[in-house]
């Protein structure tokens, strides 16, 4: 729950003002929006080293080339395969004109807003996108 919500619940216990408080909590929640607190990629391929890749505000390029931020030495991954970026309060992924395409949950896309538990496939590489959100006052 929103921190303001807890504060108000506490106030309710102390002041026996439950009905008013419910309304106040409702208002506080309505005035909050979920924002990304933490986002990361998990590598699902059994052959790859298990690791979490934290995502932040910086663009991340995934591909085979050594210059990529996330590199996979896999033949059917393009040199620069896809880019993940934070735009308009959400994480997006786009295909960088790769040879074998970019798939989200099995659907071939050019660009897609990422959602928690989306499976990203590039050639034989499979990643899982995770996002934790918290409520923040508007």
């Amino acid at each position: 729950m929103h921190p303001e919500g807890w504060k108000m619940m506490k106030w309710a216990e102390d002041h026996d003002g439950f009905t008013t408080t419910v309304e106040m909590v409702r208002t506080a929640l309505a005035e909050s929006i979920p924002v990304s607190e933490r986002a990361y990629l998990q590598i699902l391929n059994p052959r790859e080293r298990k690791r979490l890749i934290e995502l932040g505000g910086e663009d991340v390029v995934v591909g085979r080339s050594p210059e990529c931020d996330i590199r996979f030495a896999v033949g059917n991954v393009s040199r620069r395969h896809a880019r993940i970026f934070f735009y308009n309060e959400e994480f997006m992924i786009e295909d960088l004109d790769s040879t074998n395409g970019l798939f989200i949950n099995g659907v071939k896309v050019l660009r897609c807003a990422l959602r928690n538990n989306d499976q990203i496939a590039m050639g034989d590489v499979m990643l899982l996108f995770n996002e934790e959100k918290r409520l923040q006052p508007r």
Partner: protein
Amino acid sequence: MNPSGRTRTLVTFWGTRGSISTPGRITEKYGGNTPCVTISHNDTTIIIDAGTGIRNLGLELLREANGKGSPLTLHLFLSHTHWDHIQGLPFFQPAYRESTRLTIYGSSKKERFLASVLKGQMDYEYFPVAMTALTADIRIQEMTAEKVRLGPIEIDWEEQVYHPAGSLRYGFNIDGKRIVFATDIELDLLFGKRNKTYEDAVHAEQYLNFIEGADLLIADGQFTGEEYPERIGWGHSSIPVVLKAASRARVKQLAIFHHDPQHSDKFLDEIWMKHRIRNGVDHPGMDLFWAREGMTVAI
């Protein structure tokens, strides 16, 4: 909009929800905005329907236009004028810019002229800003000619049956590819009935001809097969019937669209998994996906 700079036709979903917008955590994956789709090819942008999804599209178009410093020339094709397909128009920011040229296309078979229907939703009793306050150069064109050509894109269309007050389906033909937008139609009444009338058989044939071989069909799949019997006459289709018709017409890729407002992400994921597995066996030549807000596919 195209990362590679290569000429491609891009289809982006800005709103995929049917009937009413459904904001909230349980719908954020497939999206809560009502219908709005764009087709972009080079400098030509076509918008289909003006549901609440058009608001975000408007903001994005302005961001891009401000970056380039260029005026916007836009073409909006309306399938029909039910609220969920026009409600975003008063919030479409490019319509408030003098330099924007916006042509709105729609059915000529309205009881009232299309312009007056659109003005009606901006009546002072419903909305504080009148349509005359939209300072863009707006032209409203009722569909009369068989085909419309916009640069490299040729658009054909047909009136649809079995949706209250009717609707239009559109075909967009670009560089040998065909994208069909055919939502808000109750296909179960065309294909699911045992005793078809002659008219139904004709309409069914026309529908199949229209979608024949489409590279992408964006189709109304609001209900599951189990839900449909309780919703007969609502003007929307059940997913199994859409799948069968699309497969029969050798559609290459099918996007299930106009999601029911009661369907959460979890529920849509479940029915997608069920149909996806079955589709691979029953209709192996056809890719199937559930349209999702914020998704762009290249055709």
